[in-house]
């Protein structure tokens, strides 16, 4: 995948497929250029046996084909920068996927459209509680669907096109400020 946001979207879809009701997406960038991406859910989790082989591309929960590339490509993307991918999972409690990337590495893909990714995730699963946080030395972008729902009430779905546009614009502005801060340095 040409952008990390696409990998993140792909892996987050696994959480939704696993019946998660809460998803925490946390990106943390340090001064050193290392980025840590944590995708944590409260879905059905995996057995230790399945967890041990989950990054094998021939391991998948799909029934339509025998190949599942999401985590395999995510692992590859991390390792190509000298980073790592770690997975922890407890059946019945959830799964946490932690990947690290050296953003200074030539083979590190760009982050891509994080705002659009988060907006798509929320629109596609409006009942999912999403907590997004992107922390950098320059500042922070953050969004919580819990807070949005508290403001909007129960009658307005987060899948509404106007809400999608608002989330995308709101996060895009925050992300742009982080990038702007980079350019000003």
């Amino acid at each position, binding site marked *: 995948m040409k952008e990390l946001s696409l990998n993140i979207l792909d892996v987050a879809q696994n959480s939704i497929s696993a019946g998660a009701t809460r998803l925490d997406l946390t990106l943390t960038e340090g001064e050193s250029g290392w980025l840590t991406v944590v995708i944590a859910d409260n879905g059905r989790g995996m057995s230790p046996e399945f967890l041990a082989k989950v990054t094998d591309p*021939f391991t998948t929960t799909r029934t339509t084909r025998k*190949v599942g590339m999401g985590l395999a490509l995510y692992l*590859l993307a991390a390792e190509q920068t000298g980073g790592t991918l770690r997975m922890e999972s407890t059946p019945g409690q959830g799964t946490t996927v932690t990947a690290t990337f050296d953003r200074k590495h030539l083979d590190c893909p760009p982050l891509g459209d994080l705002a659009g990714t988060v907006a798509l995730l929320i629109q596609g699963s409006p009942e999912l509680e999403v907590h997004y946080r992107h922390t950098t030395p320059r500042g922070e972008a953050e969004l919580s669907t819990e807070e949005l729902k508290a403001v909007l009430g129960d009658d307005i779905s987060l899948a509404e096109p106007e809400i999608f546009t608002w989330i995308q614009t709101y996060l895009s502005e925050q992300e742009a400020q982080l990038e702007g801060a980079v350019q000003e340095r």
Partner: protein
Amino acid sequence: MTVQDLATQLNLTPFHLEDGSRQVTGGGYCGDLLSWVMGKAPADGVWLTIMSNVNVAAVAALTDVACVILTESVTPDEPLLRKAQLQGINLLGSSLSTYQCAAALSRLS
């Protein structure tokens, strides 16, 4: 043209030749970004790449290419070779660059 014909004429190294009689009818594709190749490599074609990890076997199985050629003297790592054997994927190697190998392939077509 069969995969065996291709291997002979381009002097390819057979890391794993499961079915040399398989016909190559889908042309070729050069690419290393696996998610991109997944949507582009033609079935029954030849895929040229410098990638040599286990995901190559998965993409080859998914796209149903006739064979994979690892170019630039790249050799498969152990997990890839094992998966190629398990999944019956024709996996070949060339000392040519991807460009040179594609050009030679084109002249055979």
